[in-house]
């Protein structure tokens, strides 16, 4: 299972209390994890990626295993530790105040 940590506001929107666990079939890429996340929690569509372009929203970042994956192509495989569920995939709100 893939573990995903969401920002607090998206946890509230999705109605989840902690980490989200996803069963991602096939190759575990950025795109595959986000597709699985949105399939399980449709209310998150448009809040992490643009509906049409599928571009990451500018104030969100993707981290895993102490790496910034925000600018990796969407078909980049995620680290093995994420695939094995040892480490979570983190969706993080940029520290932009507000």
């Amino acid at each position, binding site marked *: 299972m893939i573990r995903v940590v969401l*920002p607090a*506001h*998206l946890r509230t*929107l999705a109605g989840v209390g902690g980490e989200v666990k996803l069963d991602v079939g096939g190759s575990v890429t950025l795109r595959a994890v986000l597709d699985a996340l949105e399939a399980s929690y449709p*209310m998150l*569509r*448009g*809040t*992490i990626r*643009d*509906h*049409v372009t599928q571009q990451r*929203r500018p*104030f*969100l970042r993707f981290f895993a295993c102490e790496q910034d994956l925000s600018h990796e192509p969407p078909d980049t495989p995620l680290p093995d530790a994420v695939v094995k569920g040892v480490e979570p995939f983190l969706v993080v*709100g*940029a520290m*932009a105040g*507000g």
Partner: protein
Amino acid sequence: MSTIRVLVGTRKGAFVLTADGKRDRWDVSGPHFGGWEIYHLKGSPADPNRLYASQSSSWFGQVIQRSHDGGKTWESAGNKFVYDGVTGTHLWYDGTPHPWGFARVWHLEPSLTDPDTVYAGVEDAALFRSADGGQTWQELPGLRNHASASFWQPGAGGMCLHTILLDPSHPGRMFVAISAAGTFRSDDDGKTWRPVNRGLQSEGIPDPKAEVGHCVHRIAMHRSRPGVLFMQKHWDVMRSDDAGESWREVSGNLPTDFGFPIDVHAHEPETIYVVPIKSDSEHYPPEGKLRVYRSRTGGNEWEALTKGLPQSHCYVNVLRDAMAVDTLDPCGVYFGTSGGQVYASRDAGDSWAPIVRDLPAVVSVEVQTLP
């Protein structure tokens, strides 16, 4: 006895304020969607327990929320706002072309007759409609495709479609207002549009009397006389007696005719309310005195309403969607401030008292009068 429900959108969440018909003891519910900007929430005239809310965030974009029980519980609806067809450009602040891009929903206007139909005014300016309770949204592209659209430009708050008025007497007729483009009217349920700005004069644009380009802040109508429109423009308070075909200034003796909201008394279609603001760069009341001005003559002759409002050291603003009226007798008038106060008057403006004092900055206020 009737119940009054005040729906308040703020920079950091929504609040629902309720009272019985005496309007003296208020229950405060919220924040709902804490931390999110709630530009607007409004109930369906056809089913008052059906509420819609525009929830947005710089981080997470747009969410639409829907309630079936008057705001006790909420569920997320559809948030996919995609312009129809190829989008062109409008003018940017510096006068150069700028591509159209969706930012947020400023205003939600439920249908007068169908709780599942709701209109959304968005930034960059366009009009969307949902016929399935907000699950899916379709643009009414005739507005954005108007020949003048490439010359529209944003006001300081963005290029927003902030006002939607549905004419209760002429099916298919609706008005919208856009900053900074002006007022537009459709007579065919939103398919085609034309600007209705004749008589407006704005010194901040190259041709002060241009057909479009005016920064209209708000328009209002009384249900019994939908051909009479009132407008608070960037500067100037205006009036039309022919459904927008022509406008004349009714600023009269106001201390300043800059401001944002304008609204009409529920039972007196010639009684209107504005909140004068010092200037376009000084978004606070003149002399530090928060005064609502009321005209009982449809404009030109105005009286200051001050009882219960701070008359010294008050430097809050009142935004365009932050004033509303109830339909009790006497009419209740409500407005919210950038300082987080929501003031209510139970006597048509003669006196005021705060319902709450310390909310986040108030963006919008709507009122429902429930049996």
